[in-house]
């Protein structure tokens, strides 16, 4: 696709059958995923509000198949690099989401128009095992690597991999390096890492192939906290150095 990187305006979403309770929406790039994911989440939030809080008069019974009703059937919404998965409640028809997706796409805000939320600031001790190696491979000093990693403004593009793990976009292109050729058997919980165009913080210890820059003491995922995941798709993130 020849979309301008980051504008998310080119390429209509393709809605594909994905089992009897889901559709997979294919999009041109990450920015398009982000824009559609935000637009559909906003529509779900509006549909979930009690009727008294909604503007206008309640819809008549005949309008049962209206957009808010269909939007309310979505129970899982999973953005990824080029796709958005929408899974509906048992018995609901995912095919009914096609006009909802088209409408949300028409109503979406591009990155430039979106009103950014306050970023989550994560304090990092930059003493990671791969910090010196990253400096060497990028031709930067360790101080410059840290400066570039903390200067960027990140956005959670999507989750996956493990509970609370968030793929952060916005990494300085000078820090773009492939994953390690052989993954580590154990990456410690809280490790702040980079791989390809992404940065991330490991919520728990796990095998992993990202390059470790430092560590962060804030729990990323806690089932007893509301919300359990600190970083959710769309959340803005900044890193600050405390080393």
């Amino acid at each position, binding site marked *: 696709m020849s979309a301008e990187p980051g504008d998310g305006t080119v390429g209509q979403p393709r809605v594909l059958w994905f089992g009897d309770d889901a559709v997979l929406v294919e999009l041109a790039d990450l920015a398009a995923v982000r824009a559609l994911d935000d637009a559909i989440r906003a529509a779900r939030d509006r549909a979930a509000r009690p009727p008294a809080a909604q503007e206008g008069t309640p819809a008549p019974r005949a309008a049962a198949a209206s957009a808010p009703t269909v939007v309310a059937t979505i129970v899982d919404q999973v953005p990824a690099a080029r796709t958005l*998965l929408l899974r509906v409640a048992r018995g609901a028809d995912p095919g009914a989401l096609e006009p909802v997706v088209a409408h949300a796409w028409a109503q979406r805000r591009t990155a430039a128009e979106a009103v950014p939320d306050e970023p989550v600031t994560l304090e990092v001790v930059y003493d990671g095992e791969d910090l010196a190696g990253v400096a060497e491979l990028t031709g930067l000093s360790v101080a410059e690597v840290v400066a570039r990693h903390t200067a960027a403004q990140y956005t959670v593009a999507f989750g996956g991999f493990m509970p609370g793990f968030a793929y952060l976009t916005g990494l300085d292109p000078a820090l773009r390096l492939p994953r390690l050729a052989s993954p580590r058997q154990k990456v410690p919980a809280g490790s702040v890492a980079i791989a390809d165009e992404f940065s991330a913080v490991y919520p728990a210890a796990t095998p992993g192939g990202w390059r470790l820059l430092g560590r962060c003491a804030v729990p990323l995922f806690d089932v007893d906290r509301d919300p*359990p995941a600190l970083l959710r798709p769309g959340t803005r993130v900044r890193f600050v150095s405390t080393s």
Partner: protein
Amino acid sequence: MIEVIDPGVLTLVQDLGRPGWAHVGVGRSGAADAGALRLANRLVANDEHAAGLEVLLGGLRVRTLGPVTVAITGAPGPVWIDGRPVAHDAVLELAAGSQVRLGTSTVGLRSYVAVRGGIAVPAVLGSRSTDQFAGIGPAPLAAGDVLPVGPAPRDWPIVDLAPQRPWPTEIVLPVQPGPQVTWFDDGLAALCGHEFTVTPATNRVALRLSGPAVRRRQARELPSAGLVPGAVQIPPDGQPVVFGVDHPVTGGYPVLAVVRGRALDVIGQLRPGKGLRFVVG
């Protein structure tokens, strides 16, 4: 309350899962044969979301610490109460101190035990299901565990027995094309019309099959995308993987087909060595 004497091979607490968290890396999980758990709950007049026990290959032994009403469904193995054989898919009234034992079924993989009032272990993110992939939910049952039972529902059982169709001998999974069907030379024909066998590397995460390798047209890289239960993914070795209830929330190999909703419960009942076919349907 119920005391676990022997959990057998693997017994997990399961309900209908925890929807709504996949975007932060926590999948739906829930009973692998949701229909069987629903039936067990209906028999004891529970809400269908009540938690029960998912028993892999029988072997569970429990003792009741108070009077309870239970029903056992799913893979049709023998069941004994204090040594006396009792019916599957039936409402069973047990006095305090009764011992319930599940034998091994000759067909199927998982049986379900519903207890009137539900297994009342603490919920995690709104569900009592154990997700073996994400590592969320109660630990597998261990000998000596005492399981709390919730308050009895207002309704009473309305039938004594739920007649079931005979267990299928021939397994046919109906599928429709998945998002990457065009990545394969023959499309769905590469999958349908061949016999596959369930391998021992099969669990709640996925059914791993062996059979004629399904070849794709090009070795392109696919960016990770969200998954659903029943997604048939084809890794580079060409051996299909059919995702189950504890599937990872995203996957990075092409999805050739997706199993129809009406056959998803079957995926949770196929034991290693079982043969199966896919059909377009």
